[in-house]
């Protein structure tokens, strides 16, 4: 197991990948990707039981991960590549013609690590619930994990799925919400106030935990607590507070970086703040 300093070094490289991938094609979603970097590194290096190669769509006896807010694909692609799902060099093809690394995650090009397309928001929790039910039918005791954006909570399907999970006691699922308080048009409070998100999930019958999403030690500890809360008849939700654009001072906490790529000058500045630790692709 890597130490916490080693995991943080991986995070630095992943953030370098994110700004380089998005800047190269002048598109993509760096802000949320950088905010969730600790979460992805924690999940794929520390938490999940995975089998990167050969990749199995069914994932029997593996932990499964579903990214519902598919627009933060850069962080997922970077971590999947560094964990051996596909060559790190392939990150250079992100969003380009004939690439397996589509703008939003997809299965049509058979990129290892992806089990369903996402991007149109609100659908990932339902799919994950189906996968979790399949695991129960298969007597497979591994976990199903999901990640969602806080803006995504505005989609009605999320609440259909929330109600179902509690009613059907789907207690092998551990979901997380990236609570950065920002979406495309501004703050979540300004666009459509989410109200008391914790109270909402509690009232929908979920066991709710909170974490500091940019402190990897805290992320790992909270997910391990969530694992202990599982199997007790309730689905588990982690409200994970993060900073959009984390790691680059001028990108932090501004919704502009939800879906804007750094230009050449901004990229140079950003890379100056992010240590190259594993080698750039």
């Amino acid at each position, binding site marked *: 197991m890597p130490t916490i300093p080693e995991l943080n070094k991986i995070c630095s490289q992943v953030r370098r990948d994110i700004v380089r991938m998005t800047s190269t094609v002048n598109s993509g979603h760096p802000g949320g990707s950088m905010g969730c970097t600790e979460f992805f590194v924690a999940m794929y290096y520390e938490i999940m039981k995975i089998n990167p190669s050969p990749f199995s769509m069914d994932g029997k006896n593996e932990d499964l991960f579903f990214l519902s807010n598919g627009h933060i694909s850069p962080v997922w692609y970077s971590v999947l590549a560094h964990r051996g799902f596909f060559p790190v060099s392939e990150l250079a093809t992100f969003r380009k013609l004939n690439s397996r690394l589509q703008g939003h995650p997809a299965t049509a090009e058979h990129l290892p690590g992806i089990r369903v397309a996402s991007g149109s928001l609100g659908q990932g929790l339902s799919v994950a619930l189906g996968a979790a*039910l399949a695991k129960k039918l298969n007597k497979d005791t591994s976990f199903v994990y999901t990640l969602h954006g806080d803006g995504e909570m505005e989609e009605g399907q999320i609440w259909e799925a929330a109600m179902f999970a509690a009613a059907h006691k789907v207690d092998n699922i551990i979901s997380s919400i990236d609570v950065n308080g920002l979406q495309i048009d501004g703050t979540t409070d300004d666009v459509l106030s989410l109200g008391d998100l914790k109270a909402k999930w509690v009232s929908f019958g979920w066991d709710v935990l909170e974490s500091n999403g940019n402190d990897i030690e805290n992320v790992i500890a909270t997910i391990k607590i969530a694992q202990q809360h599982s199997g007790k008849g309730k689905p588990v939700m982690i409200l994970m507070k993060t900073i959009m654009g984390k790691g680059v001072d001028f990108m932090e906490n501004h919704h502009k970086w939800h879906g804007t790529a750094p230009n050449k000058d901004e990229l140079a500045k950003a890379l100056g703040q992010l240590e190259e630790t594993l080698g750039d692709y």
Partner: protein
Amino acid sequence: MNKYSYTEKKDTRSGFGVGLSELGAKNPNVVALCADLTGSLKMDDFAKKYPERFIQVGIAEANMMGIAAGLTIGGYIPFTGTFANFSTGRVYDQIRQSIAYSGKNVKICASHAGLTLGEDGATHQILEDIGLMKMLPGMTVINPCDFNQTKAATLAIAKHVGPVYLRFGRPAVPIFTPADQVFEIGKAITFTEGTDVSIFATGHLVWKALEAESILREKGISVEVIDIHTIKPLDAEAILRSVKKTKCVVSCEEHNMYGGLGESIAHLLAKHYPTPMEFVAVQDTFGESGTPDDLMKKYGLDTSNIVAAVEKVIARKMVEV
């Protein structure tokens, strides 16, 4: 004498229900999901016999489509059940992203399609569903014609790997296909051979086409009636073979004139064999409340409408060819 006759009427949705229960016994990977319409979809027998493989989702169709997609990850073959309207239009984006684009082996089973839903009216009478589903890359679209064919189709789609839309209906209609038939996806069935006109019909309109054939035969018109139960992939070979012989076409469907079977055939013929064609279909309107029979008459989907369309297209053929 009628070549095709019937002694019993049953609803096609019951064919689905019987087929699903048979699958429950045959295939342990088949799971069923329903959005609070278990009785209407005739899924109650499956739910009773295989409760561990039946999932009551509640009135939440978007969630149902997502759960179905997820169940395929882990090797299951999910059959979703609700009305055709809620199986397609309501959940188009969920089907598009989580099922079709993701290539998931989900069977979307839809009852109460078309006008014959009857008294509930236009909110529930979807006439656009074939079009919506056939436009999705990789989606197979099937609309069987009677109880026996619906049962056989239900069994067949479990063996097909890939997303399928199976469309059936509410009212009791004549059973005229054999109980022991093997359903071949994408393979048209020729019911009568003829030389003057080809009628391509799907779903409830196949029996009406056969009724029209017998009336036209009395008038000395030789009609080829072909059941196109699979709208996608279309049996281009069977259609072109028939049209090259008869040189005029009538399509019949309980669907809007846009997006349905007729449009698929017209596209095929425009590319390969331009031919005079008439369309028995709803003329780009919504439906309304009424009995199924009254609705089929008012919206031009009755036997007499098929007879009139055949006479019109044959007259066109004489002038145009």
